[in-house]
């Protein structure tokens, strides 16, 4: 049973560019959440997708957008990249409605903006 998979593992971009990160949830999960983790800090919640809709959003600008597909996989898009967007981007999946949330995380995509 595959866990949460993310691609690519590493990415280098320059300021102003756009980037798309991808996530496949754990089998049986229907909800995907995205997090940004800067070096030395805890993960910061970006947004969550369920039933192909953004259900909740953290304190991130509109440059951060996402999508969820019918097979529950998800994409995170970041436009007009800034140096400060350099971070580890984590995808987590869960099953909506499960009592007692247990998020399953992927290994992340390390994004470097030069």
């Amino acid at each position, binding site marked *: 049973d595959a866990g*949460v998979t993310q691609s690519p593992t590493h990415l280098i971009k320059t300021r102003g560019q756009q980037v798309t990160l991808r996530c496949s949830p754990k089998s049986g999960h229907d*909800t995907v*959440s995205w*997090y940004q983790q800067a070096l030395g*800090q*805890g*993960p*910061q*919640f970006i947004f*969550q997708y369920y039933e192909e809709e953004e*259900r*909740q959003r*953290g304190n991130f600008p509109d440059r951060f957008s996402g999508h969820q597909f019918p097979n529950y996989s998800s994409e995170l898009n970041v436009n007009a990249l800034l140096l400060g967007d350099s971070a*580890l981007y*984590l*995808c*987590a999946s*869960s099953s*909506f409605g*499960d*009592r*007692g*949330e*247990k*998020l*399953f*995380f*992927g*290994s*992340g995509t*390390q994004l470097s903006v030069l």
Partner: protein
Amino acid sequence: LAKTTQPISMDSYEGQEVNITCSHNNIATNDYITWYQQFPSQGPRFIIQGYKTKVTNEVASLFIPADRKSSTLSLPRVSLSDTAVYYCLAMDPTGGFKTIFGAGTRLFVKA
């Protein structure tokens, strides 16, 4: 979402029991206490979750007093591989899945 407070870092030696305490004074009635472990360049991994009293699994125990304003993660006989960051979260799983992580506790296990 209840704010949690943990020590920034802790040191221990192999074979010792480690207890990490988390404070969550404004925890809500529906909030569960959940702990995650994270190694460098990896995503956090679920360790244990509880609502009250004591919960034990194959890797840890979680102690939650009656007032639920704090909780303690207990790691028995730690090894070098337990060196990681540990996050405590208090959240309502039925109120959406917006999980907020704090800075966590960096545990360093020495030989």
